[in-house]
């Protein structure tokens, strides 16, 4: 079931919400949790009921392994659990990719039927692996089966995240935490949901019209002009951002309506002034997971090794930073999909991060007083460089394969020539060049000058602060939401425009991951 569908908005959500608050009000704790689990399974099964079994099976398997780890912390249980998860994910997500590569490199002809990727498998698998690791490390405190089931299946985050951590979620499912209906949460949640819905159906879906045909054309072998390539890559960057951050906002808003705080997943990533900051603001729940469970352990291990070996500065830098970065981003790339372009996307990010870290090291050599002081111009240059670097990497992410990505990047670099008269031709931005340019400029305005959801909504949602989120780096203090007449009008318009844009219902980009 899609959030951007009438069935979800006018039937599923009201019924689930009513049932939840009704049961909470009368103190039926177990029934409340069961209701939410049942609703979440129904939500998941709407797409393909067969995969409900997979989801339930995965939850039972991991809960059992977790329980065994709790009783007796044995690495064999842990490895068994992790391998079990990875094999399942590998079968559904990477088997076809693996076989294709075997066929290609060894000239074989192994035929494997196309395996349909169950929605959200990457999200709920990683969520549960962290649960097993933390249980093994003795960090898991709550161990109620019903709570665990809800932790895995809670529908707002089930299909496209944010990837939640049991430490954040399980305490919120405890009896004392499930509060009776609070109107401020409901209003803030509804508002956040509307922002997400608007981002998805009004912004992302309209911008997609100017990205998809050009990327498709490139994959069919059309040579793109300079402006076509830049137009499509810009359009795609904004489409991806509005699509995915829109989904995350909707998830966040839905969580709030149930009195559950989900983590923020995007914090104005295109305002980032360096690549490291970008990854602290883009798909935060995944970056955090990769950092905590891959980067830090590997970095720690290699740093210890380098220190023991009394390695020099360059070796220490390579072992403690470069190799763990490449390792972490390799897996991050592969997490997104079974394709070499995703691997390359990850590696490109690793190169960016390494260059940035070298830059920081070099800058630190210069005495403080001799450095250029930060000002609006340096910030603008930093932001532009970061954004353009990201844009090139997104081309790799979006393109059909590495060859197509190379062709588009070559066009962006002007290797196919730069003809200014091409700018308003039909090939650029589909059939409506001026409308395409409008959407790009509108998107640039939104991502640069408007607050993100956290800045906008947090001040009125005590629930986030209660669960450990704090307001930081609030740029736009003036533009914050409150239940006023003005914001009421704004959200009436946004909701109406969103509902009017439902007719061309489209899936979320991150469903494929």
């Amino acid at each position, binding site marked *: 079931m899609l959030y951007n569908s*009438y069935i979800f908005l006018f039937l599923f959500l009201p019924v689930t919400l009513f049932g939840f608050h009704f049961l909470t009000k009368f103190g039926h704790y177990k029934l409340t949790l069961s209701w939410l689990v049942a609703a979440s399974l129904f939500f998941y099964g709407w797409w393909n009921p067969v995969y409900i079994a997979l989801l339930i099976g995965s939850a039972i398997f991991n809960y059992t392994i977790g329980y065994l780890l709790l009783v007796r912390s044995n690495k064999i249980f842990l490895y068994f659990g992790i391998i079990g998860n990875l094999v399942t994910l590998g079968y559904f997500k990477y088997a076809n990719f693996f076989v294709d590569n075997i066929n290609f490199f060894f000239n074989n002809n192994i035929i494997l039927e196309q395996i349909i990727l169950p929605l959200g498998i990457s999200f709920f698998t990683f969520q549960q692996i962290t649960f097993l690791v933390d249980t093994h490390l003795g960090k898991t405190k709550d161990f109620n089966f019903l709570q665990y089931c809800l932790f895995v299946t809670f529908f707002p985050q089930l299909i496209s995240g944010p990837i939640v951590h049991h430490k954040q979620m399980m305490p919120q499912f405890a009896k004392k935490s499930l509060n009776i209906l609070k109107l401020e949460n409901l209003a803030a949640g509804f508002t956040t949901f509307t922002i997400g819905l608007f981002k998805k159906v009004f912004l992302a879906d309209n911008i997609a019209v100017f990205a998809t045909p050009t990327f498709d*054309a490139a994959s069919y072998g*059309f040579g793109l002009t300079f402006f076509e390539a830049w137009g499509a890559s810009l359009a795609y960057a904004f489409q991806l951002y509005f699509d995915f951050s829109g989904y995350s906002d909707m998830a966040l808003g839905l969580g709030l309506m149930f009195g559950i705080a989900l983590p923020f997943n995007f914090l104005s990533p295109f305002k980032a002034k360096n690549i490291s900051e970008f990854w602290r603001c883009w798909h935060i729940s995944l970056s955090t997971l990769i950092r905590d469970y891959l980067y830090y352990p590997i970095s720690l291990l290699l740093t210890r090794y380098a220190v023991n070996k009394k390695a020099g500065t360059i070796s220490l830098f390579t072992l403690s930073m470069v190799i763990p970065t490449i390792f972490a981003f390799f897996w991050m790339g592969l997490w997104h999909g079974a394709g070499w372009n995703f691997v390359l996307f990850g590696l490109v990010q690793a190169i960016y991060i390494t260059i940035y870290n070298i830059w920081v090291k070099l800058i630190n050599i210069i005495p403080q007083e001799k450095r250029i002081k930060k000002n609006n111009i340096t910030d603008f240059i930093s932001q532009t460089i970061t954004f353009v670097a990201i844009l090139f990497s997104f081309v790799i992410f979006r393109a059909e394969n590495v060859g197509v990505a190379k062709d588009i990047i070559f066009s962006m670099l002007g290797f196919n020539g730069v003809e200014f008269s091409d700018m308003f031709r039909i*090939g650029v931005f589909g*059939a409506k060049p001026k409308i395409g340019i409008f959407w790009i400029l509108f998107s640039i305005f939104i991502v640069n000058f408007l607050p993100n959801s956290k800045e906008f909504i947090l001040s009125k949602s005590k629930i986030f602060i209660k669960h450990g989120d704090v307001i930081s780096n609030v740029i736009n203090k003036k533009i914050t939401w409150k239940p*006023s007449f003005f914001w*009421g009008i704004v959200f009436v318009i946004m909701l109406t425009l969103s509902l009017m844009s*439902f007719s061309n219902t489209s899936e979320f980009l991150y469903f494929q991951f």
Partner: protein
Amino acid sequence: MPNYKIFLYYLVGVIFFSFVLLLLIALINFKIDPSNIYTKYSKSSKSGTESLNSFAKKLFNSKNGILLKNYTWNERDLYLNFTKHKTDADCLILGASAIKQISSFRKNKSLQGTCRKILNLGINGAVIEDYIVLSQSILENQKKTKNIIIQINAWTFNFNRDNRWLRYKNDYNRAVKKIISENDNIYKTNKTTGSYQTSLFKNLINIKYFISSLNLINSKKNYSIELAKDFNYELGTTHKVLLPDGSIISAAKTLEKRKKNNEDLSIKRNWNIQNWGIVPGAWYEENAINIFTKLVNQLKKNFNVIFLITPYHPDVWSNEEQPSVKAMKNVELKLNEIAKILNIDVIGSFNPKKIGCRRDEFFDEIHPKDLCLSKLENAYVFN
């Protein structure tokens, strides 16, 4: 005011006024109704049928056709009604928008070797369901016509490619039963699931429909029928004109704009296959081909049936690797197979080279001008 009340008023206010605004938009869409899908001139009402009959009679008796002002009429209602009137045309042509310029009335006459006089029944976005409805009506009402020419598009052999045909869903349900029995597997698998009423309801708050409504908000619907005066067919006139043979001449402004586009060579080279509702690789549905074959066999009992294919812009064909061109090639191949089995001639091709159409002989990617259409018989496969 207590804090919770502010939130309550806000929440209720936003939801309530959003619905009010949606209701207002729905009312505007219903009232303006740019595509005439909520029109009172429905063929199901008595007054509607009378108006349609009057329209058809005036058109067939006119010299220069009728001005199509203010989008007053529903195209499907009109063309279905045309099939019910006696005509002296020896060729009836079924097809989509690409055939709308086919005419025996204009300087560049089309299909001269095959037809003396044409009745063009081309409908925007015509799909197999349209062909079934119109064909049954032709079978019931036309006795003197010699040729039925069926234009095939890359999407023709797929059901439910477009939902505009649902306008005459009841006619379709009646027509399809005359082609296949209710026990037939095709009938069972092709039971239309989409509800036209639901689509109509959703369309009331459709943003694109609303934009079309806003564009027409100042123009009043004019149900009076205004005959076109003498005008130059090459240049057009103040409004779109429906010629007495069912073909269309665009308004002068549109023709000028299209000419300019063509001079700019602003042709979209990649044609998105999603527009056709086809999944690459699955070029056609076997059930659609089966039902189409049965329909043709039925028509053959009374008429000489000919298949027609109109070409696409040469720029679209410049990359034969793109799915849209692959779809065209596969469908053309399949159509030739069917034609051979049924002994039916095929005129034209999707490939403009085979016909000899140049770049400047197209309005856009998919719509050939009358000059290109006059050469269709250059590609003629006798079976």
